[in-house]
């Protein structure tokens, strides 16, 4: 098990009994030390990590069985499992936002209080999410074609990539 605050293995397992329900924390030695020595009256409290937040959110929402099922979900484009994301707090590819959307959206609301972008948009290469997913797939296909020394297929794929990049798909 990894530490909820960083990437190191969790060697300290703390159960907090101060709230209404017991609250479990899994930390490495260093994070445990700073957690245990933090000033209870304030100071700089540890921000809950992404993995910690997800852990909490899923525990509330799902039974162990459902969670295990969810963990097995794998993105067809980059191959990351939901379990890996849950543990590392980092996604594998842009398509994960669609693939794990139903679990990610509540987390995103939790972090940002919103799920609608209100900032700038790219001016030039604005492709649909589907096109972007297709691009990653085509790049994978091209790598495979080059490895197989199938250069004709590789050049066909390159043309397809160019079309999408130039917005002609």
């Amino acid at each position, binding site marked *: 098990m990894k530490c909820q605050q960083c990437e190191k293995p969790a060697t300290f397992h703390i159960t907090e009994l101060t709230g209404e329900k017991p609250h479990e924390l899994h930390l490495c030695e260093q994070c445990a030390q700073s957690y245990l020595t933090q000033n209870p009256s304030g100071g700089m409290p540890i921000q809950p990590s992404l993995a910690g937040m997800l852990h909490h959110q899923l525990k509330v929402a799902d039974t162990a069985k459902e969670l295990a099922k969810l963990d097995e979900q794998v993105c067809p484009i980059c191959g990351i499992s939901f379990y890996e994301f849950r543990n590392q707090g980092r996604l594998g590819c842009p398509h994960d936002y669609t693939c794990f959307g139903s679990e990610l959206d509540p987390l995103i609301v939790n972090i940002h209080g919103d*799920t609608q*972008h209100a900032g700038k948009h790219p001016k030039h290469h604005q492709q649909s999410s589907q096109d*972007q997913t297709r691009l990653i797939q085509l790049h994978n296909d091209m790598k495979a074609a080059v490895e197989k020394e199938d250069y004709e297929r590789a050049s066909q794929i390159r043309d397809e990539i160019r079309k999408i990049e130039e917005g002609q798909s």
Partner: protein
Amino acid sequence: MRGSGPESDIVISSRIRLARNLAEFPFIRRCTPQDRKSIEKMVHDRLQVIPGFNTLYYLRVDELAHVDRQFLTERQLISREHAEAEGARSVAIDNDERLSVMINEEDHLRIQVMKSGLDLHSAWDQINEVDDQLESKLSYAFHERLGYLTACPTNVGTGMRVSVMLHLPALVITNQIEKVFRSLQKINLAVRGLYGEGSQAMGDFYQISNQITLGKSEEELIGQVSGVVPMIIEYERKARDFLITQNREDLHDKISRAYGILCTAQTISSEETMHLLSSVRMGVNLGLIDDLAISDINKLFVETQPAHLQKLRGNELDTAGRNIERALYLRRYLQDRGKEHRDERN
């Protein structure tokens, strides 16, 4: 850290960074070594064809010696993570070290603009322009509803982190700093120590930044940070006034002792140096020390760091050696500057 720009007595620097990813590759965690090389090469090649970008220094971080990577980190041109990561990665830096573009950090691109003093609006104008130019040659991963897609959902949307580095010694001395933290957290702003996430506040420097990146425009996020900073500045100035009117002798003594140690120490750690320079910096601002300018202190903060000292000396030094070199550098610098100021006055 030039000690210039608006409110530079208290605001060290203003920084904006944008996280961007290329549409055609997986995020860094799932990239193969070959993918990382392809991204690195693609970004490098495209940078060469953008007017004005071909003059950037382009450094392959993975090919640099440890001390050089540390040097770039100390100058805040790359992150600690970027310095310590593995695989093909690089950084493009402009001439005056205000702009840096990290390639293959946590996201494919991390664009950063830094300004001296409180100057977020001009930092935004510059980074927005750079982002537009890069985007004309690269296709970014962008979602109609979620905005710019990032490896970590905490950055999704604008991908923007706006931060301001503040020097708040009087709020620390008067034990009011925690009150400031608590009120900032209530309005979704994060407070961190000198080197960002997870680091301790050293030398009373605190970085304030936006926590949310989605649901607000870039201008709104900048407005939120730049709106709150003047209040903290005001709060720090009031605390300084209080200290100087209520306790002038004690404050003057603390600052003079700090200056004295820096001028005479034979061996000194990085941590002690930061701590003492922080007092001296406040002393210069309050007119209690007139031999030095704020730009001198800011320069010393940067140049007494481990990699800077080793570059200056021209060879590797262990901790004990660095402590001696640091003390020597401080003594020489402060004696020379003090003499120049005295000569100017006479």
